[in-house]
């Protein structure tokens, strides 16, 4: 993909098999021969881990796979960091639990894969080459039994059985003998084979497969791929271009129910706590945690609209137990479709109770919870430059994934010393610092609001001057706008920002612009704010849905006067838009009060009140009277933290 080139450029679908960045190869290490020999010896045994030598840490870069390890030369070593520096917390482990969480996750990993691909591509833009993001935060280096190196997300995904579509739960890299013809080795008697109809690969997956087989002249055109994805995404794997580790994808089996009935906290809770499945997921987490040298935290996405929140709660309990000091950042996500299924009063009471119970349980098990998912994305203010069909999970999840990707960036930026300044990014922080900042001080409010501007307006220049802050709109449901909260705390990330005339804006210019805006803004300035800036925009990979409207340009610049409607389609997708700038923000503010108050109201009205309708429902989920009251207390504490003036007696619950 070449910038600014017109005409039909075939968009590459990057799919990184292994990470082979050769950006910072070490200059010859000053060691004498005997030391060098010892070093080589240790390398032979240690191809996964880091290597400590002469108080420097090295990472062993994987040589080409046919290369015997004993022939490693010095050029395969990379200095990671000096031990004398402060230990930086590094690795993140990601959880995706539930269908919609996996849809979002699928887009999220596509972005990462695209960034990796752009890093390697000699033709990509300089911005992507110098992105300076540490991908090892999210990815792990591995090796198959055949000795082929791999680079896969450090991820655990949990979903229904059969939700993986045409992807094997063992992933794509570590499979060798999937053919059923190899016969049954353990049984000499009869064999009956029950094969279900193979899932047909869509055009996109076919093309990925072709490219994997090095058939470069794939006959499948970009436009066809985009069209087939627009019309027919059924599973989240349909648009995923990432290779997963065999430990990553977990299917819940033995549910024996329609996914529609798997719709409340109680059911999910029972599923995992009863059988061995919970243990197995925890084992997989241990697998990823064991390899981490300094885990900085766990990033957890859960589709909390149904039983998966119960599943997540029991997983989180284990995390709190086993990895006590590892902070968890939880995104509780919810698809727009969820809001359409509540057709009867009974269902809506159940779901209200579920909301209250699930939120109370999840929030008490993590350090920071971010509710994400508007009832209608298309009608929200975020969609100023977007055109999203709410019914399509494939489209709406892309928006949330973009925002979560942005929030995630500061965790991967390389930390500079006190004096070091990078021209490419600033404002690195780790997950722990982020959580401490938002939730750890003052009000101890652990609920944050996610805001995004997709794409934000240009940062400099008079012509298009629009306030950035005014363009950040919440992706969290049930929030109040225009609140004056002098105690607010926020952390913002702006990346890939453009200025007048499509020019990239430097890091310091962005900092200045944001600072000026804080000064000039009419509403109260937050008590504390943190800003992270990166020059690297959000790359739009091929399997990204066409959700931009015709005001968005090739690089995410905003066209001031809409081009003549006739010549451009009403929706622009990955073929028209190659990257966009993004701004996203996490905010701890009283604006989240309606969200909390609603949940408190639900549990009081349907659960706690004498003779309330929902008491039976809660009992069937396994909650006793006292536990229900605890939930109410927990929620009212959260409300009180933000709004100490108001007295919430347990009487005024209507």
């Amino acid at each position, binding site marked *: 993909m070449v910038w600014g080139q017109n005409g039909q450029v075939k968009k590459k679908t990057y799919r990184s098999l292994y990470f082979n960045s050769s950006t910072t190869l070490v200059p010859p290490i000053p060691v004498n021969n005997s030391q060098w020999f010892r070093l080589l010896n*240790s*390398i032979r*045994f*240690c191809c*996964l*881990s*880091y290597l*400590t030598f002469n108080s420097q840490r090295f990472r062993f870069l994987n040589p080409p796979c046919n290369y015997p390890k004993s022939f490693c030369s010095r050029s395969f070593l990379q200095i990671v960091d000096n*031990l004398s520096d402060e*230990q930086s*917390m590094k690795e993140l482990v990601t959880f995706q639990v539930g269908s919609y969480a996996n849809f979002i996750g699928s887009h999220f990993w596509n972005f990462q894969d695209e960034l990796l691909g752009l890093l390697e591509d000699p033709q990509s833009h300089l911005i992507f080459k110098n992105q300076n993001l540490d991908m090892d935060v999210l990815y792990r280096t591995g*090796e*198959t039994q*055949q*000795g082929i190196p*791999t680079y896969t997300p450090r991820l655990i995904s949990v979903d229904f*059985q*059969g939700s*993986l*579509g*045409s992807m*094997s*739960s*063992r992933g794509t890299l570590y499979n060798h*003998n*999937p053919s*059923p013809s190899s016969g049954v*080795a*353990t*049984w000499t*008697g*009869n*064999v*009956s*084979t*029950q*094969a*279900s109809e*193979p*899932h047909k690969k869509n055009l996109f997956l076919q093309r990925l497969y072709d490219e994997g087989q090095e058939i470069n002249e794939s006959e499948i055109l970009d436009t066809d791929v985009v069209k087939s994805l627009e019309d027919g995404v059924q599973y989240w794997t349909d648009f995923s271009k990432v290779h997963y580790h065999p430990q990553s994808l977990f299917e819940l089996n*033995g549910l*024996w129910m*329609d996914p529609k009935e798997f719709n409340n906290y109680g059911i999910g809770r029972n599923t995992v706590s009863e059988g061995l499945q919970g243990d197995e997921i925890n084992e997989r987490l241990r*697998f990823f*945690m*064991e*390899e981490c*040298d*300094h*885990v900085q935290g766990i990033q957890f996405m859960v589709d909390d609209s149904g039983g998966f929140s119960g599943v997540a709660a029991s997983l989180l309990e284990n995390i709190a137990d*086993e990895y006590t*000091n590892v902070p968890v950042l939880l995104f509780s996500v919810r698809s727009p479709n969820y809001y359409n299924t509540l*057709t*009867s009063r009974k269902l809506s009471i159940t779901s209200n109770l579920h909301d209250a119970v699930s939120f109370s349980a999840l929030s008490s098990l993590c350090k920071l919870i971010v509710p994400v998912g508007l009832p209608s994305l298309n009608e929200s203010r975020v969609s100023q430059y977007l055109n999203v069909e709410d019914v399509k999970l494939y489209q709406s999840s892309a928006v949330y994934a973009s925002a979560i990707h942005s929030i995630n960036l500061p965790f991967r930026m390389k930390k500079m010393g*006190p004096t070091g300044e990078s021209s490419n990014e600033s404002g690195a922080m780790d997950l*722990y*610092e982020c959580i*401490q900042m938002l939730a*750890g*001080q003052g009000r101890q409010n652990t609920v944050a609001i996610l805001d995004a501007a997709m794409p934000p307006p240009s940062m400099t220049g008079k012509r298009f001057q629009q306030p950035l802050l005014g363009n950040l709109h919440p992706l969290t449901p049930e929030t109040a706008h225009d609140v004056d909260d002098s105690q607010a705390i926020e952390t913002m990330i702006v990346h890939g920002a453009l200025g007048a005339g499509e020019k990239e804006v430097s890091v310091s210019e962005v900092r200045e612009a944001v600072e000026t805006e804080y000064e000039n803004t009419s509403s109260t300035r937050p008590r504390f704010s943190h800003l992270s800036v990166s020059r690297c925009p959000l790359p739009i990979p091929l399997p990204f849905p066409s959700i931009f409207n015709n005001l968005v340009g090739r690089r995410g610049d905003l066209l001031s006067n809409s081009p003549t409607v006739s010549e451009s389609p009403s929706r622009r997708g990955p073929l028209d838009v190659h990257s966009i700038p993004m701004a996203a923000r996490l905010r701890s503010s009283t604006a989240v009060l309606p969200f909390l108050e609603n949940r408190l109201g639900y549990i009081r009205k349907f659960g706690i009140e004498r003779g309330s309708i929902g008491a039976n429902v809660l009992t069937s989920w396994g909650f006793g009277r006292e536990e229900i009251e605890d939930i109410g207390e927990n929620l009212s504490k959260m409300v009180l933290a933000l709004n100490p003036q108001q007295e919430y007696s347990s009487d005024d619950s209507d």
Partner: protein
Amino acid sequence: MSVRVLNPNAEVLNKSAALHMNINAAKGLQDVLKSNLGPKGTIKMLIGGAGDIKLTKDGNTLLKEMQIQNPTAIMIARTAVAQDDTSGDGTTSTVIFIGELMKQAERCIDEGMHPRVVVDGFDIAKKAILEFLEKFKTPVVMGDGPDREVLKMVARTTLRTKLYDALADQLTDIVVNAVLCVRKPEEAIDLFMVEIMHMRHKFDVDTRLVEGLVLDHGSRHPDMKRRAENCHILTCNVSLEYEKSEINAGFFYSNAEQREAMVAAERRSVDERVKKIIALKEKVCKGTEDNFVVINQKGIDPPSLDLLARAGIVALRRAKRRNMERLILACGGEAVNSVDDLTPDCLGWAGLVYEHVLGEEKYTFVENVKHPNSCTILIKGPNDHTIAQIKDAIRDGLRAVKNTIEDEAVVRGAGAFEVAARQHLVNNVKKTVKGRAQVGVQAFADALLIVPKTLAENSGLDTQDVIISLTNEHDNGNVVGLNQHTGDAIDPEMEGIFDNYAVKRQIINSGPVIASQLLLVDEVIRAGRNMRKPS
């Protein structure tokens, strides 16, 4: 029909339709699982939409893989899975027994009997059979030294229904030894103390019992030994990694020096913990060739690893929680939660600790321990589905042995119990029952025969011939089971075919309960879906 009035959209099935719906569901499930039963059954290979392969001959696994939607079938499946949870085996038998009870009941009901009468008969028969089982079982004396031969026979009977004979026989010894290894006098057997580990490597026959432990991770430092002999083992749950201090410590510092001082202090406290461990090592290993291995449930970060490696210590981090318990049982010593009061008494001992690397997977073997009370079954196999199937079989085998020890009894197998129980019902019990409940007793008795019938059917024998020859032989006063190869009657005791007492009792207990419930259903209402708000 009152439901119709309340909700015109509700689907209502009347009496006979409801009953037949239930019976058909039970029969359907029976048909699916029937071919699994016994050592001549059919193994099922399931290929998913993405080409994933699963192999199973286990009713429990198969049920979990099926996307059952029918509510009746779900009820039966839940009973069967509960059967597996409580007694470890007999899922397939439960399902086919329930199916057969329903089938026999259907016959009576079609002839005009009321389901209630049939159910009464079931109740009487069930009580009688449970009493009969007490008399029929073969007691096994479990003293300090249990009869290995009996345990082996039970294990072999189970394993041979899941794996081919040679492999089953090999696993029989492994399974029995494993259970006896973790058995402690006067205590319930905790099968969790048998670790089951698998490696995708070599062949199924390379599966073996490791007296000691196999951990699925290795040391994370290149300078640590890959193989160490005569090892002192420290099992601990102590964080050896730099952590930011707990909540509220704040992360704002007024100047850079303060920040660095805090970081240094944190680091120092970790280093001190490491140094205490090193000091213990110096104490116990000084002047000897002994080695020292630290197995930690919490993390160990690279600087700590480095310190330990320089002191010649092998260290493993993030061990499984259960392995902490197993390690103590296998190697001795005790698990420590703090390094403050370390004494040589805390240490366990193993003759050999070594690492095995397969691709990115590392395994650490802790072997040659002195008095193992915990052990590991190491499953090997060329691919995942083979491993998974062996794993299922081993789990069943372990529980069969455990049940035998706890029941202090076994039941003669190969259909012998079912034939004897049936004859007992027909010849003795039925005569004592007055009135129409006799029909229910007879139906129950005939349903019992489904087990030998299915065994015969799966072996390609004629079911009628087999049943006649078995009942005749039984009425001659012998306890007989079915020879799978010839269809002749055999003495299961001679052949060494024994089932678990607990499993049989559970089947007799739960089968009729669920069948009775389903038979007594006289209306099925399907409401709640597509219901609109009554506004």
